[in-house]
């Protein structure tokens, strides 16, 4: 940003008049706020005794899940776009040829280091097949660092756990789609 950038609006700090400079009004204001909170409902949540439920689970960015396709297979096509987008470099994928006739490529191994992740949601944004999503599940604990590297099975199990509560956040193309019928006809 340059100082002469036309998009930058420079503001002057307003001058305080004598009354304001006494600071009394500000102090009274402040005391008012304190007093109000002393009598209204308490804001502090006694976590973890009182667990927190995100108001809109579809907007919360918590632990990842790997979605499954209609046949229950991992939906991810191992394109590495999430790993490319991830600013924390915490996604590790090993791709392979898919064992299924209607799919070409799939992740043989998929791991996310949940400790290194900054929960920015870039992976979700990057995924062309909506295979990776963040859930509203947030209270992760583990006793070792290794335990916090979630592998494919674990990420799929997060999907199984959350799929009823949280529907797919987005819906777009499916690369796993079978080739259109006419293509198959042509083959014959």
């Amino acid at each position, binding site marked *: 940003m340059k100082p002469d950038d036309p998009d930058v609006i420079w503001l002057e700090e307003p001058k305080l008049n004598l009354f304001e400079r006494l600071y009394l009004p500000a102090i009274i204001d402040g005391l008012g706020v304190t007093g109000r909170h002393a009598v209204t409902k308490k804001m502090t949540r006694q976590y973890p005794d009182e667990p927190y439920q995100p108001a809109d689970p579809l907007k919360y960015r918590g632990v990842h899940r790997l979605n499954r396709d209609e046949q229950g297979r991992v939906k991810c*096509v*191992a*394109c*590495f*776009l999430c790993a*490319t987008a991830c600013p924390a470099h915490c996604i590790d994928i090993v*791709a*392979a*040829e898919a064992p299924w006739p*209607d*799919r*070409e*490529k799939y992740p043989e191994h998929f791991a996310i280091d949940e400790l290194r992740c900054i929960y920015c949601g870039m992976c979700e944004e990057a995924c*062309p*097949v909506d295979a990776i999503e963040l859930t509203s599940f947030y209270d992760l604990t583990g006793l070792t660092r290794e335990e916090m590297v979630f592998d494919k099975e674990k990420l799929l199990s997060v999907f199984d756990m959350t799929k009823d509560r949280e529907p797919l956040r987005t819906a777009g*193309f*499916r*690369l*796993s*789609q*079978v*080739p*259109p019928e006419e*293509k198959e006809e*042509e*083959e014959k």
Partner: protein
Amino acid sequence: MATIVVNGQEIQIPDGARMNLIEAARLAGVEIPHYCYHPGLSVVASCRMCLVEVGQRDADGNVRMLPKLVPACATPAQDGTVVVTNSEKVRSAEALVEELLLLDHPVDCPICDQAGECYLQDYYYKYGRRERRAPAEPFTSRRKDVGQFVTLFIDRCVMCSRCVRFTREVSGTGELAVVKRGNRAIIDVFPGQELNNPLSGNTVDICPVGALCSKPFLYKQRVWFLRTHRSICTLCATGCAVLVDQNMNRVYRLRPRFNPNANDWWMCDYGRFGFDFVYDPRRLLRPGTRGDDSEPSATDWEVVLESLATRVRRAAQEGKPVGVLLSPFLSCEDAYLACTWFREVAPAARFYLGPVPVEGEDERFPKRPLGAIGGGTESRPRFVISGEKCPNARGVRLVIEHFQERAQEVADFVADLDRDGAGFVYIAGGYPQPWGDELAGVLEKADYVVVHDLFPGPLTEKADLVLPMAVWFERAGSYVNRNGVLQCTERAVVPRGEARSVGRVMWSLLGRSGLYRAEDVLQELALAVPAFAPAGAISDYPEHGIPLQSVHVAAGEEPAEV
């Protein structure tokens, strides 16, 4: 000098340079997009991506433009040719061709290995329409394995026919053809054939899209993670210039790099897919002494080098022979530093050139003369795979011949050792497989044997000290190929384990300070050895290598290059 005008900019092209407008425009820094044109293949002008407006400027400076767009790939650049590539007409033609090519395309870029270096992608972003008018229905492309190393994704093909022309014109094996017609045309192998010629991997490189993919590399990496280093292939004496693609210190792919002095645009499958031995679990990774299974620690290099030096000195003092066998897999720098050090500590040291592996005859391409399939006749081969399966027999020989009358061979080594015994023997290998049965027996006669090599084998069993060697892409160096061209390589990855190159070991033995830099050693070598003089005083090594005049190309050996 012919003057041509590209988008209003005048450029000079040298007389006699037979150039089409794509090449000429490139000289002016203007890219003309193209699929079917490849400088190494015949021109068919079939993809229509390179359509441009062309005119002729006469002596008075009046320009007459042709009414229609013409393909730049099939239009020669002549004096007064005027090319326009940025007009509305050209831009819309480019966008329409792109749109046409993508009508039936599976748009499966996320799972396509070519994504990131795909001309269909790049050109679509540069020259295509912003929005797609046809429905986009991504699906998986039909796939067919056409050969041992090559797989074809049928629906990704843009029908440029480069691969077909390659198998007809360069490999001369003609396995591929276009079958069916119109929008149903696909590439296929002839019934009962497979794309299994030793140059098949090149079709993957020249395919401008992801239709032909390399099976060994399939899905191993996304290309944007790879870092590229300039190197050569060291598996035969042709010494193809290559690019080594590496990610996180592991090499995944070799690709040919254009060098008219060695390989043109091509390389063979033996070299391309033959670097697996580097990651063989049997490779030597740590220095070790005989009968010593314990894992020496990292500092051991210093310790072993010290004892090595003491042994050589002792042998020299006692007047016992010192034998140094240098394999043709070493770089010129390796050989030079080794000779320098051994000369210094043991002035009577004898140098021998290790066995030069030869497997059969040179393989020449095209397999069948071009005339047999159609087109002209060419007598000189387009590509030669050398029967001599090592990169630097000429370079190491030149270096040794500088230090002693004649580069003695393995037979001399065996005979000398048998006759005189030795106080010290140093064997530098680097062969891609265990070797040395013919030497192993006679090593008993040496008091102390050091083997610097890649794999355990008959020699390491006899050795008193085994040192792990770095392979070519784990070190920088230069090599002299069969045409007598010196090519320099960069280091692509750090060596596995504690492996070190001969050059680096000798550098520490010579007690030189600072890091071992192959460039500096080559400069020194160029000053010291007249044969290498052309490599001297060059700060930036030419991509196409440096021809060394004094290398006699053996009788009957033709230059591998056209």
